């Protein structure tokens, strides 16, 4: 078996040296009725690399991948172009097959890359510091909520009505275990009315969670909300599901957020059918915040020879030190995806992120212009970055199904994430710098034809 280096001769000799007759002797603590004698019958035996490859190729061929379609899906996962260098670098043995950098002397590669990543994340979210990654944006948001509750010692949380439904649900699942009271108002596809939010900001509030651009694509200035929230000594948690938006519009940090939870998947990671992605978590530089920030942190220091180096630090927040009193139970996070994110961000630099953001927005403006003349379609947004929502005269899911047979992945039906709330005719459409003029025109033409 190609992954097992021991030969029968090796096993024989090793057992002889140990003084055992059979490897099964080492399983002496297992009650004999539970120790299997033969391989599990319901599973196939070993297969060659060729056979395994064939099976997976067969499964892959059954899927319509984005490269083979005109692609307009978003809703929290975006398809940007990733330079070839990124995947090449993360496949280097030293990055791919290394462990968590607990022995810093032989992990400076990972640690320095993490320090650079933390810096980039802080700057992309407009905050002072960031951690070494979370599983994804949704769990980052959930942990941000818990962090805010610990900091304010309150347990009431106001979730923006236009927060990505998966994020809201993840917050609630994590929060329910700790008796956190969530106030959620029904989603508003026309754009969230600020009045209703303000009405719920009171002295019992731990935090307000606002997503920008919101789930339906609308853009909003968070500054007035930040002021209102700070007046009652609560915190503003900003959420970003499309980190590239920071290239063109104000970051939550610039608009007064205290903690930012974001999804970094747009840079370096790709769609991946939803995972692994990379959660970004950043906050203001205050001692109390730092003590309550979950996840790993990489810090700068010096070695015995006076050289600058990096180490995991402030571990007393974490499970392996504090155990039951830890800020979170997170251990393994998204290290390699954080590296991919960082490499892509380094290749892009300030100019590249700006250009990627401009082009993503420009293509979406083109799509807007192409769809606007279609009388049967109503566009909800007056503002957007790279995604907006529209109302169709017919069921969105059925339309998307129909268009998928024509080689168009026409976006995400809102009701897929918000079933039973009257959004059955609404559709989310997104573009990036990859979207071409031809794809936009094809989409508009097909849509017009199908709705006629």
């Amino acid at each position, binding site marked *: 078996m190609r992954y097992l280096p*021991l030969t029968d001769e090796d096993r024989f000799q090793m057992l002889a040296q140990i003084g055992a007759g059979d490897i099964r002797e080492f399983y002496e603590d297992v009650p004999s009725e539970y120790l299997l004698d033969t*391989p599990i019958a319901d599973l196939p035996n070993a297969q060659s690399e060729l056979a395994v490859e064939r099976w997976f190729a067969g499964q892959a061929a059954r899927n319509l991948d984005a490269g083979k379609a005109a692609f307009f899906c978003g809703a929290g996962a975006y398809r940007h172009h990733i330079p070839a260098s990124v995947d090449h670098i993360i496949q280097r043995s030293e990055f791919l097959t290394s462990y968590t950098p607990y*022995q810093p002397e032989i992990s400076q590669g990972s640690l320095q890359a993490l320090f650079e990543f*933390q810096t980039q994340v802080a700057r992309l979210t407009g905050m002072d510091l960031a951690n070494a990654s979370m599983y*994804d944006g949704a769990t980052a948001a959930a942990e941000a909520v818990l962090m805010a509750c610990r900091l304010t010692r309150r347990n009431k949380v106001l979730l923006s009505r236009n927060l990505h439904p998966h994020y809201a649900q*993840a917050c609630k699942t994590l929060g329910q275990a700790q008796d956190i009271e969530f106030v959620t108002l029904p989603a508003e596809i026309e754009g969230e009315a600020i009045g209703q939010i303000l009405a719920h900001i009171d002295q019992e509030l731990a935090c307000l969670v606002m997503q920008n651009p919101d789930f339906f694509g609308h853009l909003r200035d968070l500054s007035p909300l930040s002021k209102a929230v700070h007046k009652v000594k609560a915190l503003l948690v900003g959420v970003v599901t499309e980190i590239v938006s920071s290239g063109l519009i104000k970051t939550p940090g610039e608009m007064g957020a205290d903690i930012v939870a974001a999804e970094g998947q747009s840079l370096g990671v790709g769609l991946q059918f939803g995972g692994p992605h990379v959660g970004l978590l950043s906050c203001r530089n205050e001692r109390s915040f730092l003590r309550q920030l979950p996840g790993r942190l990489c810090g700068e220091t*010096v070695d015995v020879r006076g050289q600058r180096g990096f180490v995991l630090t402030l571990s007393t927040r974490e499970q392996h030190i504090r155990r039951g009193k830890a800020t979170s139970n997170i*251990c393994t996070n998204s290290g390699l995806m954080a590296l991919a994110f960082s490499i892509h961000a380094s290749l892009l630099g300030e100019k590249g*992120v700006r250009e990627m953001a401009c082009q993503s927005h420009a293509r979406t403006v083109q799509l807007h212009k192409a769809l606007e003349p279609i009388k049967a379609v109503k566009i909800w947004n007056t503002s957007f970055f790279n995604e907006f929502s529209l109302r169709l005269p017919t069921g969105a899911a059925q339309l998307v199904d129909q268009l998928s047979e024509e080689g168009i992945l026409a976006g995400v039906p809102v009701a897929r994430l918000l079933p039973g709330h009257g959004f059955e005719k609404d559709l989310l459409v997104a573009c990036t710098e990859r979207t071409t003029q031809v794809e936009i025109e094809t989409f508009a033409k097909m849509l017009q034809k199908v709705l006629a």
Partner: protein
Amino acid sequence: MTKNIAMRRDVANEKNHPGGSGSLNRAGRPTRVPSWADDAEAQPSNPGLDRSEPLLFEIGAPEKTGVDFDPCPEPGDEFLGGLGREEDQLGLYGLSEPETLRHYVRLSQQNHAIDLSTYPLGSCTMKHNPRQNEKIARLPGLSDIHPLQPVQTVQGALAVMQELARWLCTLTHMPAVALAPKAGAHGEFCGMLAIKKAIEARGQSETNRRKKILVPKNAHGTNPATAIQCGFNVVEIEANANGHVDLENFDAQLDETIAGLMLTNPNTCGLFEPDIRKIADALHEAGGYFYCDGANFNALAGMVRPGDLGIDAMHINLHKTFSTPHGGGGPGAGPTVLSEALAPYAPLPFVKMEASGELTLVEDETALGAEKSMGRLAAFHGQMGMFTRALAHMMAHGADGLMQMSKDAVLNANYILHHLKPYIRPAFPGYCMHEALFDDKKLKENGVELIDFAKAMIDAGFHPMTTYFPLVVSGAMLIEPTETESRHDLDRFIAAMQSLLEEVSSGKTEKFKAAPVRTAMGRLDETRAARQPILVWQETETT
């Protein structure tokens, strides 16, 4: 001792160098530690190939970029809601492509990795990461697909998830599995929340009183952290002299406040709990649930089915037992198998086969079978990239190969135990499972601290074993080679350890205090890092 081991000891033993005939490895090339290694002043392992590398911000510039874009019309700011920003305000630094490659390749060469040598980290299962898995995970049909495309356009992806679920359930003999958790700790949360919901379903008085979770003192820190995160109280239980759960201590805790037990099996001392079925039965009798931490499943896969032992939930670390790469800290995946009692509370979404034979995703609580679900744990459907890799690994091994995998893992650990126990004291008598636990008594007797010994292992070319864990053993040294270590590499590791331990006995404390000396970076000041946290780069006046 075979000739090979004698040769390895030569290489590790500095006394034979410099000059002299040196010693030969199997290929016949002379191997010698460079003469400067004896020099008191620390030197990097290969001074001519210094890999120290500035920060990207010190070599890059805001104006630089390594990505070219094609022309695109200007968008204007009509639709930006007044939130448009000026250029050049983020503070990002860019590099051209050549600079980027050089920066990261140089950084990579400062990292140790499993591809380089044995990584005997107990409880981490650092095994070989098959490269076929990387190829398969990158097939566009499996990676360039959006989670929310219509399900009929991703039937192959759902089939992969379904097949992985089948393997996990069959290997563990459990009726259900939650694929959603994104790492082991996330799986623990999933399992513990399911237990919490099962208790809540019994009514208010049970909910109010059943808050106690028993956790062995030797448990991984994520266990109590997770229990607390779920709103439970944690009571620690003791191990007996053999390293197993103290049954009397355990039984004494089984009252009407018991919610459950979190147990790792084999436990963190590397030992199978022989009374596990008794423990499960007593626990269920008392109205509690059994959470099993599956981090050590590498000893059992294909040999023992945890479902036969009476567990209610167990997470499986795909990045441990099933070879998905550790990547310097993730991503992992922690699918969690569930008993009949807990299956109704499984998180959303899950894959389901319709009557038509088509696969779909159940994403909403109102759907049939999802009414009692705990809800979502994260966005989208789970760590698909890890599912493809793990399933490829499972299919490559097959049921017979997985049996051999576990057996070889256990054999390798016992081989190391056998050859090191004359030198360091095993924490418990008898054989071990897939990892061997020692304490540092022999080191302490000779004035050597465990941390210093670990650093000296780095100079010998190995990542240190897990140290100071589990907490129940003073100065714990936990060694897990895994099944992907060859006899040659095991012997090399053993020889290096024996050589170092001989140096411990001969009182060479200075060498250990100074280690590591062969690395580009010496010991780092962790106290300073914590006291004066610098977590991001800042421009100074000169930049």
